[in-house]
């Protein structure tokens, strides 16, 4: 368990990070995505079809060309959906900012903070 000083400092930092433009934009895009019925319908259908095809494949049943085409059509539709794409881009933008933040922490400590956190148990 983290000691209270570290926990408070980490929380304060995380809240500031969350309020910075890249992460705030990600949250805005996420909220828009969650509120958009068409995007939600598309994503749910895409997930459902992908799972159904995966199950078929696991069971050793063949997948028809028709099913593959239908999945591709749906993927294309998702890629043309502005709300979904705005979310994907916002997520990429936010994720691209995190290594920069990590570098700032790591430089002062003399080791890769995020790398070490991610390497534990792997």
């Amino acid at each position, binding site marked *: 368990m983290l000691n209270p*000083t570290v926990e408070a400092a*980490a929380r304060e930092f995380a809240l500031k990070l969350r309020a910075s433009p890249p992460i705030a934009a990600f949250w805005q895009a996420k909220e828009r995505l969650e509120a958009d019925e068409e995007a939600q319908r598309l994503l749910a259908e895409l997930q459902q079809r992908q799972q159904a095809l995966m199950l078929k494949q696991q069971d050793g049943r063949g997948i028809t060309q028709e099913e593959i085409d239908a999945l591709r059509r749906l993927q294309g539709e998702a890629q043309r959906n502005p709300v979904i794409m705005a979310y994907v881009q916002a997520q990429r933008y936010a994720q691209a900012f995190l*290594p920069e933040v*990590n570098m700032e922490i790591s430089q002062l400590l003399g080791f890769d903070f995020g790398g070490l956190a991610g390497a534990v148990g792997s």
Partner: protein
Amino acid sequence: METMWQIQERVMEPVVSQEEALQAARELAAVLAETPEYQAFDQAQLQLRRDPTAQEAIRAFQERQQSLQMMIMLGALSEADRQELQRLQREMLAQPAVRAYVEAQERLGLFCQETAGLISEVIGLSFAASCGPGCC
């Protein structure tokens, strides 16, 4: 009902510049540098650097590992080479300074994981995954 934290999150949302976020990162690093986990790691690292026997054991293992890299990657390591590599690794890990360093690094790793986990929870993105090994 909103908790104090949720209110704080909402109020703070659009007001922090990227530079301020980076400044906050530096402030967090300064707090982390004062923790027992970091101090112990720093100390273990120093001890390891100052221990010539441990350094020699590390060098012997790493040199042999490097020279056999290709065979390891191809899965074509001979039994004799594998045993020699294991012996060198055992000798390296038997060094008290190496063991102390490895243990301190593990403890620091768990501590970083917990800290990064808290950050990820608040920002809604995996901090460690976005900064995986090799990103910096």
